């Protein structure tokens, strides 16, 4: 029982210990740190690809975050830092890639699919309406009356 309790305590404390262990050399200036984190959230960690630089604890992510901090501290703009990163790692580092010939499909694709789906829906509805009109014509006059009689019993 005691051992279990200790284990639970240890597990509860572990994340804090770990966080303390990997704490970043934060900039003294909180405003700068905020910019660093905001910009890092826009950049992809190359090692663990579905995390941003801000979230990742990979060595390279830490190095790159430090690089971002340094560039911003040196007075570079957000756009200049992004340019620095894409020059080295390509558009892949950006979570929001720029619109250009190779990324057009990525940006426009979903809207094209939506248009196709809407068009298909309209075609389908138009066809059905035509089919309905046809059945209405087939049962005209006497037939329609007979059908109604049969249905109503």
């Amino acid at each position, binding site marked *: 029982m005691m051992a279990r309790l200790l284990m639970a305590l240890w597990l509860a404390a572990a994340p804090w210990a770990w966080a303390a262990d990997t704490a970043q050399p934060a900039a003294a200036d909180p405003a700068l740190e905020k910019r660093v984190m905001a910009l890092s959230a826009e950049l992809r960690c*190359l*090692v663990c*690809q579905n995390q941003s630089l801000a979230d990742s604890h990979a*060595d*390279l992510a830490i*190095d*790159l975050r430090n*690089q971002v901090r340094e560039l911003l501290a040196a007075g570079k703009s957000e756009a200049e830092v992004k340019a620095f990163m*894409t*020059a*080295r*790692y*390509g*558009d*892949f580092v950006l979570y929001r890639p720029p619109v250009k010939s190779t990324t057009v499909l990525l940006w426009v694709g979903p809207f094209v699919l939506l248009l196709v789906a809407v068009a298909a829906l309209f075609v389908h509805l138009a066809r059905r309406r035509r089919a309905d009109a046809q059945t209405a014509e087939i049962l005209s006059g006497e037939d329609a009356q007979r059908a109604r009689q049969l249905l109503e019993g």
Partner: protein
Amino acid sequence: MRARLLLPLALFLVLVGFLALGLRLDPREVPSPLVDKPAPAFSLEQLHQPGARIAAADMKGQVWLLNVWASWCVSCREEHPLLVELGKAKVVPIVGLNYKDRREDALAWLERLGNPYAVSAMDADGRVGIDYGVYGVPETYLIDRDGTIRFKQIGPVTPKVLQDSILPLVKKLRG
């Protein structure tokens, strides 16, 4: 009517096609924007001779390989015998970029496994690595006489890559 019944099957096959293609692609292989761009300049301390430096500019006029390695890097072991062989054959000079490593570890590693490098530069803080867009060691760059990167291999150099890509390109670049 029959064509309409086949539509889901056709869509399914298209989907399978895309998924099959997706399985073959390696998401870790990020195309480098540095290919056909000038190799970033660096000047770093040499691994074997503390105090002496090696710069990218020193290699101007030669076709050379820049191999990013580290003693802590597991996949580096995989490609190392091939590099040692290549180094012995003296086909193309290999410059090592010892990435975020400790000197004694790096030296011991080369002592044990062989040293294929004409010279190794020490990139202890990984700055030059960032300039070269390194994100997974080992990485290998083929750089031409003018100092332009012509090819980049991410991950271990395999005999296939060496035979099919690197060596023919070295030959071509030498003219």
